[in-house]
């Protein structure tokens, strides 16, 4: 046992762990804070508790209730204990609730491996809810007129699906996999700010429940973009959206900050920037985007909340504000945000390909340049969302150019994928299949994006199912496929258990096929004139919409295959995974399973990048290269 491991405090008795600062106290204080805010809100505005219109329409009360509820929840989890202890003069400590029992998964824990698994389960839960919303949307679109839901419920479903996906999935890969594996990959014993790491997770969970609670307050009619002045008009359910996205913004900014600090300061000796695993590079680029973009979102939503509560007019044309201001601020955050979703996928695919092709990563520097290029350019394209809005019409050629230029660094990633596959000795395991599918999906996503970046073509497709198909190809086809590649690749390390291979292959093939049969026809629907977010559509589009709905349900069933596999393999059968089933040379696979609390007995010294695969050209078993090859 090394000295650092001995520094972990002895476990408190179980009764002590159950009564203080865990999920139970958090929920109790959260509910208490909620009602305190509700009462305060009514006191401040002088509204009646009994008059129905006052109770139902008090935005101040609901916003205060949410904010105080979240603060209560965090205090209940114990986030104030350490600052208070320090203020009282107790000695500093780095660790809380590490290393003991399953209860550490249910509260504040500063072990990055625990937080990673918390994130995987928490995000998986909300991904499931948001996917169910998508199923309900497709149920409604089976018919061209409202049948299952009214227009208001339909728009709320659309809004919840979009907002939850775009909000929770910003941390879809960084939350579980970067938190768990970045310290392992860079030879660190923890993250730079372990408590902030735990805070980002619990903020995101609080945000998820707040967004779900919008159903009790009438939902919100704006979709995930929350455009003003519709935002200002909407009922109280809109406040759930505002608090949700603001909390997601805080969580994103802190997560990004923590990742940057960890990667910059905590790399093991010898791990120079040019030896950094490509996944860590992608996390770094994503984190830069998060730190720079998320504050814009928080500020925008603060202004929207003020417009709704104390009648400021930041976004109200009649009062000197502008609805354009919201659109610009939102997309100044929103476009970098879609790359927050895409970049980790680039990293996963490029990280996994060398392992399965038994070749070094082809074009390492080009891949890094591609990611950094996307990061930089993504801040200069946001007005392509406003091509037909009438603002800055003379700047459209610039935004057309900047948007199309972003496909050059994205093209680098494709070249690196193709170069790594070239003459490799690939084994088509499930993670590898997901990587190949990613390449195909993201290609279609990228090519359809060229149509949207072209202003004349965008005039037809803006705000239609074409756009919707495009970003589902980049986000589901890109992010979610990479997410599953990461699950099949890394969960054996995280749990020490292996997935059932046959069920995994069934999951892959059904998901890949039904994903494409669902979303490919949406391009056609969009081009034929189907707008987004409508509950009623033209009757000539009925057959194609029914086809899409049925395939969407089959895609949903394919997700159930995955859930079945997870429960069967990780809960029921529990077959042990090999120590390093993929024969990876990356640092995280060299640690023991389960990973000790301190990760490494001795901090490793790094003398190469993790892609030391392949035999020298001409060695036994490797085909000789022709001259000049």
């Amino acid at each position, binding site marked *: 046992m090394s000295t650092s491991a001995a520094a972990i405090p002895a476990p408190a008795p179980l009764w002590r762990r159950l009564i203080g600062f865990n999920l139970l106290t958090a929920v109790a204080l959260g509910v208490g804070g909620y009602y305190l805010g509700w009462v305060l809100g009514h006191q401040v505005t002088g509204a009646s508790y009994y008059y129905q219109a006052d109770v139902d329409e008090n935005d101040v009360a609901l916003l205060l209730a949410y904010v105080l509820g979240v603060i209560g929840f965090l205090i209940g989890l114990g986030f104030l204990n350490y600052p208070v202890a320090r203020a009282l003069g107790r000695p500093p400590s780095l660790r809380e609730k590490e290393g003991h029992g399953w209860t550490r998964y249910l509260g504040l824990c500063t072990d990055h491996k625990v937080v990673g698994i918390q994130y995987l389960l928490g995000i998986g839960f909300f991904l499931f809810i948001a996917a169910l919303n998508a199923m309900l949307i497709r149920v409604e679109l089976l018919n061209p007129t409202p049948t299952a839901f009214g227009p208001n419920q339909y728009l709320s479903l659309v809004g919840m699906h979009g907002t939850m996906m775009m909000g929770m999935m910003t941390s879809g890969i960084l939350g579980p996999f970067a938190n768990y594996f970045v310290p392992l990959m860079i030879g660190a014993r923890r993250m730079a700010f372990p408590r902030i790491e735990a805070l980002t997770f619990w903020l995101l969970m609080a945000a998820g429940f707040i967004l779900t609670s919008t159903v009790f307050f009438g939902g919100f009619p704006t979709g995930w973009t929350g455009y003003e002045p519709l935002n200002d008009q909407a009922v109280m359910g809109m406040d759930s959206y505002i608090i949700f996205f603001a909390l997601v913004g805080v969580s994103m900014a802190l997560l990004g900050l923590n990742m940057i600090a960890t990667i910059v300061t905590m790399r093991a000796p010898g791990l120079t920037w040019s030896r950094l695993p490509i996944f860590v590079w992608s996390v770094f680029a994503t984190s830069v985007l998060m730190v720079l973009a998320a504050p814009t979102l928080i500020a925008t939503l603060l202004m929207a909340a003020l417009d709704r509560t104390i009648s400021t007019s930041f976004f109200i044309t009649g009062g000197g504000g502008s609805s354009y201001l919201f659109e610009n601020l939102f997309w100044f955050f929103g476009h970098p945000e879609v790359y927050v979703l895409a970049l980790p996928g680039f990293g996963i695919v490029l990280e996994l390909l060398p392992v399965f092709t038994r070749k070094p990563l082809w074009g390492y520097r080009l891949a890094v340049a591609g990611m950094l290029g996307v990061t930089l350019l993504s801040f200069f394209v946001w007005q392509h969302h406003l091509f037909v809005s009438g603002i800055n019409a003379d700047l459209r050629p610039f935004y057309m150019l900047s948007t199309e230029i972003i496909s050059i660094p994205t093209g680098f990633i494709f070249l690196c994928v193709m170069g790594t596959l070239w003459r490799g000795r690939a084994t088509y395991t499930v993670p590898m299949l997901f990587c190949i599918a990613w390449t195909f999906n993201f290609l279609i996503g990228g090519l359809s994006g060229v149509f949207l970046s*072209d202003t004349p073509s965008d005039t037809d497709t803006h705000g239609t199912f074409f756009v919707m198909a495009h970003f589902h190809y980049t986000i589901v086809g890109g992010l979610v496929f990479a997410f599953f590649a990461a699950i099949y690749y890394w969960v054996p390390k995280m749990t020490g258990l292996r997935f059932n291979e046959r069920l995994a292959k069934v999951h892959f093939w059904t998901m890949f096929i039904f994903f494409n049969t669902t979303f490919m026809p949406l391009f056609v629907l969009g081009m034929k004139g189907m707008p987004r977010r409508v509950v009623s559509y033209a009757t000539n589009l009925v057959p194609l919409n029914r086809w899409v709905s049925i395939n969407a349900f089959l895609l949903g069933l394919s997700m159930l295959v995955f859930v079945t596999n997870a429960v069967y393999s990780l809960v029921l059968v529990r077959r042990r995974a090999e120590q390093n089933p993929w024969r990876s040379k990356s640092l995280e696979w060299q640690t023991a399973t389960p990973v000790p609390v301190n990760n490494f007995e001795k901090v490793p010294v790094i003398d190469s990048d993790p892609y030391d695969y392949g035999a020298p050209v001409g060695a036994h078993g490797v085909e000789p290269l022709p001259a000049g090859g």
Partner: protein
Amino acid sequence: MTETNHFRRLMLLWLIASAIATPLVVVLLGPILPPGNGSVQASGHVTDNTVLLGMATPVFLLVVLYLIYAVLNFRQQSGAVLEGPAVRGDSRVQTAWIVITSIAVLSLAAYGTAELVGNGAGSGQGPNPASVPAGKKLQVQVIGQEWAFTYRYPSYGGVETPHLVLPVDTTVELHVTSLDVIHSFWAFQLGVKADANPGVDNVVFVKPTKQEAFSVRCAELCGIWHGYMFDTGHVVSAPAFKSWIAQQRSVFSPATHYLPPYSTTYNPEPTVRGS
């Protein structure tokens, strides 16, 4: 098998596939691409979409054929655990890729710009349009409100009509604005889309070339009845338009009397704020 061999075979495969598929896509799909040739702007979009599709086809084929080829050829023989060649890059391939993609991307942007600046491509240009088609123009105002579009004809006494009728072969100058939230005026067959923002005059030009009905839809989420904010407009001959507008003037003359004077934007009374 040598690398040159793989490379040549792949390139040959790709060239043949592209040479067959690209003309097929352009010839077969091009004519049926939306939004058709209902206006000068719409025909421009069809050309534009055809060019983009023609350029996307070889790129798509390159990556997809490569993936298929790689999956079939570059794989571990069953049971073997051989390593691949330890090649970490090739500066000639990388340079060529960067140069070719840059040229393709820049020429696409140049082409798009040329298409855009000619006649505005049917997209909203705001109060001070940058691309104004030459010649005489008929001014029509589109007013979005929850949840319908209405239209005012300032050169015909500012009459406000519930449906849109336009004369054929005339350049129309649409002034799109909103009375409440953001809407988007979308005349599908005419290739026109322009957001209706409160307090903003968003100008868009269109020259209809075919006498036909066209659908009008709101393309920006504007509240619960957004899905029902649609209508059918008509492009008619010049004499038919003259008689229609005269009839509208007489039918709606009592209403016109109470309308505010024609203006590019209307500031409604301060709205009921909050929820």
